[in-house]
């Protein structure tokens, strides 16, 4: 035994005699993680969160969240002598006088954008592959919670510098709060500490931004990851992989080295972007004053679709009994997102109600094999993209010399027409892909080699695919639709007949698919 081994052994012994961790650690180190590029998306989320914590802590060392007025006396000439909030002045100081401060600001902002993008990509991966199914519904809901927290945290974050752009964002936030019937005005006055912009909002959201929400993030992320650990990761179907096992690399050393290395790569890419592509140059916007605004005011991208919905809303307000209800704000900013996010959170239960499938699932779906779900996902993405396009309608109009009114009308109509269209097209595409799979299994790969038969006929040689590949393409299960009759044996309507009818209809739509190739089919074709 070498000295190093001896020392390590002593240390391990010291710990184990006190907390008895050897058994648990041994078991954990044998943990297996399946490999697939799409499983990295969740890792990107976690790593950018760590980067946000590190860079954010750096920024707090200099940032002053106060709304008190100061006269700027820093090194940035164009703003010298101008009255501004201490928050804005200290952000300028971080950008110009703290060495590496601007880099850290850029890293923080880039990491936030990438954090949200990775959450969305991770969510789509989980959705399209059916990873949210039993037993992982809790983790799906926790993920939706993290996404929602991300919106709030991001909004607060880019509001803190108190520049002209972020102040405009807060003006809109206060208008949304004011639009809430009954209590909105009061909530707004309490949050802002008076009439907008008030005196208290920045210090308050600073505390939320650096303490309360990151704390909530940390707690939820911990549970999220612990559940992945405990329930073991899902895997794509393939030879040797079943619902009862998990095939992959053990945590030590391969997974650890890859994941650890990947953290540095994510950090490195974010740092590189921050070094060469500057975003949110707050010194160009100037300090916030409610009487001014800059053209092309845009929120960060993950809020853009909400802004797009607000922009396309019809000018509806109800005035009655001395009160006003602003439908033009409530519907796009609160009601529609509320319905979308609630529906998204409950989707695992909705799908299992439709299919009647209450079993555990650890093998992932290939999106094409579940056309209805895939189409629903693409439909939702289309909805958000149309809204996002409208959120940038002014930018699009100026860059491409289009009419802003036309883009708005395109979005107003498109938001209703394009998502259903996307649904239909995606469903057809999925079925075509299934047909392609079927052809590949039955007839093999086209080799491009033409052969002339003795009879004079030309045929192309097809090469059979490997048994492994054949298994991947045919191992998915095709559950039949639920049979729910609205009437019983004597023709009397059952209780809940309408509910059953809806469920049977949905179940039928969900079960659509091409019959997959069986070994009998193959045998038959070999006979020919």
């Amino acid at each position, binding site marked *: 035994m070498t000295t190093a081994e001896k020392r390590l052994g002593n240390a391990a012994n010291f710990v184990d005699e006190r907390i008895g961790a050897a058994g648990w650690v041994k078991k954990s180190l044998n943990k297996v993680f399946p490999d697939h590029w799409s499983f990295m998306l969740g890792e990107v989320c976690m790593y950018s969160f760590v980067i946000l914590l590190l860079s954010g802590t750096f920024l707090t060392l200099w940032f002053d969240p106060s709304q008190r007025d100061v006269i700027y006396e820093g090194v940035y000439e164009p703003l010298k002598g101008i009255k501004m909030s201490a928050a804005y002045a200290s952000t300028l100081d971080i950008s110009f006088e703290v060495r590496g401060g601007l880099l850290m600001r850029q890293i923080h902002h880039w990491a936030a954008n990438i954090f949200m993008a990775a959450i969305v990509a991770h969510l789509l991966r989980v959705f399209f592959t059916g990873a949210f199914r039993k037993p992982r519904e809790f983790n799906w809901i926790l993920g939706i919670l993290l996404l929602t927290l991300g919106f709030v945290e991001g909004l607060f974050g880019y509001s803190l510098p108190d520049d002209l752009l972020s102040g405009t964002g807060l003006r809109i936030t206060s208008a949304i709060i004011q639009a809430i019937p009954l209590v909105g005005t009061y909530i707004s006055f309490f949050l802002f500490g008076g009439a907008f*912009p008030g005196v208290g909002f920045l210090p308050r959201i600073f505390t939320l931004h650096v303490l309360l929400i990151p704390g909530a993030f940390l707690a939820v992320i911990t549970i999220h990851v612990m559940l992945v650990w405990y329930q073991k990761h899902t895997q794509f179907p393939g030879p040797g992989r079943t619902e*009862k096992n998990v095939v992959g690399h053990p945590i030590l050393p391969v997974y650890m080295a890859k994941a650890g290395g990947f953290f540095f790569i994510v950090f490195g890419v974010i740092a*590189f972007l921050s070094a060469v592509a500057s975003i949110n140059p707050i010194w160009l916007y100037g300090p916030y004053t409610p009487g001014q605004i800059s053209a092309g005011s845009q929120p960060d991208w993950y809020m853009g679709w909400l802004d797009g919905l607000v922009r396309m809303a019809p000018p*509806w307000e109800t*005035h009655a009994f001395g009160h006003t209800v602003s439908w033009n704000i409530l519907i796009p900013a609160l009601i529609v997102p509320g319905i979308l996010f609630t529906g998204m959170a409950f989707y695992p239960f909705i799908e299992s109600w439709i299919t009647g499938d209450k079993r555990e699932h650890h093998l992932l779906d290939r999106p094409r094999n579940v056309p209805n779900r895939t189409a629903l996902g693409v439909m939702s993405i289309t909805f958000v993209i149309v809204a996002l396009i409208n959120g940038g309608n002014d930018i699009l109009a100026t860059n491409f010399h289009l009419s802003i009114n036309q883009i708005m009308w395109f979005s107003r109509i498109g938001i209703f027409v394009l998502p259903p269209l996307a649904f239909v097209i995606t469903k057809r595409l999925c079925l075509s892909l299934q047909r392609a799979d079927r052809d590949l299994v039955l007839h093999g790969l086209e080799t491009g080699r033409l052969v002339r038969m003795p009879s004079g006929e030309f045929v192309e040689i097809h090469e059979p695919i490997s048994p492994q590949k054949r298994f991947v393409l045919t191992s998915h299960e095709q559950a039949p639709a639920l049979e729910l009759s609205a009437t019983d044996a004597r023709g009397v309507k059952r209780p809940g007949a309408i509910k059953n009818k809806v469920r049977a209809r949905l179940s039928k739509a969900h079960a659509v698919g091409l019959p997959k190739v069986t070994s009998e089919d193959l045998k038959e074709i070999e006979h020919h």
Partner: protein
Amino acid sequence: MQDPGPAPHVMRNADIDPKAEKRAEQQVAILFGLSGVSSLLLIYSYVFIASDVFVFIPVMGSQNVQQLGLGLGMSFSLLFLGLGAIHWAKKLMPETEVINHRHEFRSSDEDRDELVKTVKHAAAEVKLGRRSLIKRSLGFSLGLFALPPVLLLRDLGPLPKKQLETTNWKAGTRLVTDPGNRPILASDLEVGAVVQTLPEMPDETERLLSDIAKDPVLLIRIRAEEFQLSPEKLAMTHDGIIAFSKICSHMGCAVALYEQTTKHLLCPCHQSTFDVTRGAKVIFGPAARPLPQLDITVDEEGYLIARAPFNESVGPSYWERNSQ
């Protein structure tokens, strides 16, 4: 279809060829070395490069050398560290796949029964079902207990009172330019002119941001015959000069874009468009109400003044707003 089992394992070069293994080892070492060099670049930039040196780089434009050195040094030190670790894992670490077995998450029936029994037993011991006095008083106090945390937040801010209905415009308040604080002679405004104004404040009164959030008024002069206004609204103008609140009636942004040819005002936040000739009527976008119009005239010296305060709330709607 039958599961054919995993495809046969293919050995990597470094597994069979000691030369390839050596090469891979060197590659990893080079990557780690480059990471170290990049960290030195960061340190050099921090200590030795002044913060006001700029260099022109094609595509990127003029760049601050110190910022660039710090950023590139940091990103490359991180990137090479990550690449080295992954290269190491891919080329040299064992790559055979391992199989773990899953267990069903449902607890065994015995465990479930045991749990139910324990809970029932505990419930029976405290006799919660029979002690309704305790149950009710506990519910009562827990309900009250939830109130103080909400109540304690009351002092976060003042009550709205009339703050959203009132501005600093009063009868006789002069319109002054923003910025500049100069009163405006009606005769100084040419046709086509647009001026942002604020109410003149008594000396020594500081203008708060919350004042600027509701007081700004846009002054626009067009040819008087172009107005298509009701007699009341026309009476609120002065010689082709019309005054609107600059705070958008939709969400309170500054309605800052004026198109002189069409005489439209556009809010850059959500593109609500208001027609100046028709009393800021909404002709496009999500805003539901015209911009409030300020009744203006001139005083004996010829300076523009407000004849009356706004006769409605400026800015976005809220529940208590009486729009009648």
